[in-house]
């Protein structure tokens, strides 16, 4: 363990702000891209299911 205590870990020896903001923003962007990908899949499945139901109703 490179740090004595959790507080020390958070402070990162006066560089805490930079390290945690870097990781925070990176996590945000990665998660957003993942969520968008999954939401895209859901939306496509939904539209196709709706089209299918509409097609069956017409038949």
């Amino acid at each position, binding site marked *: 363990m490179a740090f004595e205590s959790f507080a020390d870990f958070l402070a990162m020896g006066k560089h805490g702000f*930079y390290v945690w903001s*870097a990781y925070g923003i*990176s996590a945000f962007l*990665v998660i957003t891209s993942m969520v968008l990908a999954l939401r895209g899949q859901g939306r496509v499945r939904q539209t196709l299911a709706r089209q299918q139901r509409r097609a069956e109703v017409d038949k």
Partner: protein
Amino acid sequence: MVWQTIKRWYHMLGSPRYFHTFSSRVLPWLTPIALITLVTGLVWGLVFAPSDYQQGNSYRIIFIHVPASSGALMGYMALGVSGLVAVVWRMKMAEVMLKAIAPFGAALAAISLITGSLWGKPTWGTYWQWDARMTSMLILLFMYVGVIALQNVIREPRQAARAAGLLAIVGVINVVIVKYSVEWVQTLHQGSTLKLFGESTINPAMKYPLLISMLGMWLLYAVNVLVRARTEVEWRERRSKWVQTLIRKGDQ
């Protein structure tokens, strides 16, 4: 014999249907592995790696910066290759890949820029310094934006993909040339280029977490691409019977 297997793989992966089943089988186990690898690499680097005698702890940003930069670069190379296959051999899957690879690559390029400048502040005193690496990454981000913008403007999906493919091919050549021309500008002004990530990574205690987090990020990139590609395949093949049955069955 090798040539047969390559050809067989080329045709198998070329068929959207096979790719769909392939990705549906791979995703359930690849996603956890990617996440675990990435998290172990980051935790190892953040918590257990020793602090750097010069930069203290701010260097720990490297464990997200380098994976992101390498991912963005690899992503654009993959775009170039998919572009070549899409434009020259007109392969449908390559067109799907062009749509699937770009977004996460652009995100990684943005991450690389942000983490790079956040690392620059404590180390060099400024958030932005126009050094060779950061400028190349900025231009790479612009080129990602170009590919994504072109794809979204053109209505016809196949034409949009092939246009973006051609741009990606030209783009890949440009990435290499930009790298040298930016370094040339550097040598003109500041003598030798500043090695922002040079010697501090030699120390093995830092090298292993870095390699693991890089692997983790690439696997995560693969997961993102597979999800997006699978969605794109479902949309493009929506008229085919196998997608109709899949929707009717309500696949997970």
